[in-house]
């Protein structure tokens, strides 16, 4: 690897950008440990606001396609992020949707059950838990007149979009955050020019269950438990014990990290290959393991055991799902 890299005369240009995300994706890049030196040997980091002082106007001045690779994490929550997504798309040869937020919206995408107005009310309204004091009820405005002229803030969107819903994306890297091994695999593939088909997700095409070491019997569930209700036995499949383990519908690659520490998979690696809608896949799988043929009993098992269906089936993928969001007409009702 290092050799192929050093043979190259000119270094490539790498950009790492964040939009609506938590910063964990940047940290995950550091988890490739000493290999970060190989990355440094292969690339100049031209832009990464998290760790380096780059300027947007330097990117704007670049020729189209001048950046070799851009790892873009985060969803598109406001107009400034959309601008950056378009700019980096234009200036990059390879644009990677890095991690769950960019790929499918992730936790910020759950905001799609609300809209701008209801989110602002929660965050800024006088007396709300998050803004106990705001006596004049001041909300962020797109335009503000000041003596020096007009100041602009980005427009906050009603609906968070994934990167691919905003611009053309070359590759996807799953995970919240992506696994170091897989990041390295992606970087190596890019450097060596051994890239898969455009639009593919870099990773494996199996499910977490296949990487999970727990013992499996026939799954027959009469009751679902929340994680705090029971201490599961450490050897049997968690789903069999009535915990909503999402391993059955989730792309592998993490080595079944969560079940390994007695905690159900919550689905952070998103849908497996060929699945349109993660939540639909998971709902379908869960329907197969409920042990009842009686309509009323089924309704009860589901209503009692899964009080937050969107947060359960679409925790990471609401924005990237077929429906993308909750109905705007019923927000707050």
């Amino acid at each position, binding site marked *: 690897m290092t050799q192929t890299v050093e043979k190259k005369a000119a270094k490539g240009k790498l950009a790492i950008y964040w939009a609506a995300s938590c910063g964990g994706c940047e940290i995950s890049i550091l988890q490739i440990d000493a290999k970060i030196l190989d990355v440094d040997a292969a690339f100049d980091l031209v832009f990464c606001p998290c760790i380096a002082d780059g300027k947007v106007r330097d990117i704007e001045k670049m020729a189209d396609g001048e950046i070799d690779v851009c790892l873009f994490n985060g969803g598109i929550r406001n107009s400034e992020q959309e601008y950056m997504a378009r700019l980096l798309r234009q200036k990059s040869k390879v644009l990677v949707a890095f991690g769950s937020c960019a790929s499918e919206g992730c936790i910020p995408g759950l905001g799609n059950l609300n809209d701008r107005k209801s989110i602002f009310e929660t965050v800024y309204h006088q007396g709300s838990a998050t803004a106990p004091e705001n006596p004049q009820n001041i909300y962020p405005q797109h335009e503000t007149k000041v003596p020096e002229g007009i100041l602009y803030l980005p427009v906050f969107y009603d609906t968070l979009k994934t990167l691919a819903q905003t611009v053309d994306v070359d590759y996807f890297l799953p995970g919240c955050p992506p696994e170091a091994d897989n990041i390295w695999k992606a970087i190596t593939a890019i450097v060596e020019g051994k890239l898969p088909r455009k639009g593919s997700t870099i990773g494996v095409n199996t499910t977490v269950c296949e990487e999970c070491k727990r013992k499996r019997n026939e799954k027959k569930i009469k009751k679902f438990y929340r994680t705090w209700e029971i201490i599961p036995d450490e050897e049997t499949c968690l789903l069999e014990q009535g915990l909503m383990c999402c391993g059955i519908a989730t792309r592998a690659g993490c080595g079944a990290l969560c079940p390994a520490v007695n905690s159900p998979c919550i689905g952070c690696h998103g849908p497996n290959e060929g699945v349109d809608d993660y939540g639909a896949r998971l709902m379908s799988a869960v329907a197969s393991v409920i042990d009842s043929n009686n309509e009323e009993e089924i*309704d009860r098992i589901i209503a009692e055991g899964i009080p937050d269906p969107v947060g359960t089936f679409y925790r990471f993928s609401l924005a990237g799902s077929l429906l993308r969001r909750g109905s705007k007409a019923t927000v707050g009702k």
Partner: protein
Amino acid sequence: MVNENFEPKIVGFCCNWCSYRAADLAGTARIKYSPNVRVLRVMCSGRVDPSFVMKALASGADGVLIAGCHPGECHYIEQNYKAMRRYSILKHTLRAMGVEPDRVRLVWASAAEGQQLAEAIDLLVADVRKLGPLKWPGNWTENGQREEALETLLKEHEEAFEVLT
């Protein structure tokens, strides 16, 4: 408030062995039912993945009908019980997303029950008509002031360039 001019668009997934034949029978027996349903034939109600329903709603359908053989009479033994469980979870999730439960309905109809299926279709159409159009894609296409905000950003950046150069 019922809008008389609103014609609900309903997608119907009908099982090949019973309800599709029931729909066929209703047709040949000239039983009248609302023309609002586009019937799609599936081999079994157990073949209807929740994503089919989501896709229909996301593509502009106002309602979805899933029709299968009566419980105990599925040609693939137990699959319509699976359909029953999937439907229960799907309904629960759709409700949480703000889709009224009356828009998506699972019904059973044997091959001889053309009349019953026609009635179930009419009932669903009437209920969806009462609810009005779903217009789901409109939920995400408007991100208010978006284009305008992008323009101002471009302008600001251009101005910054002018100052610099």
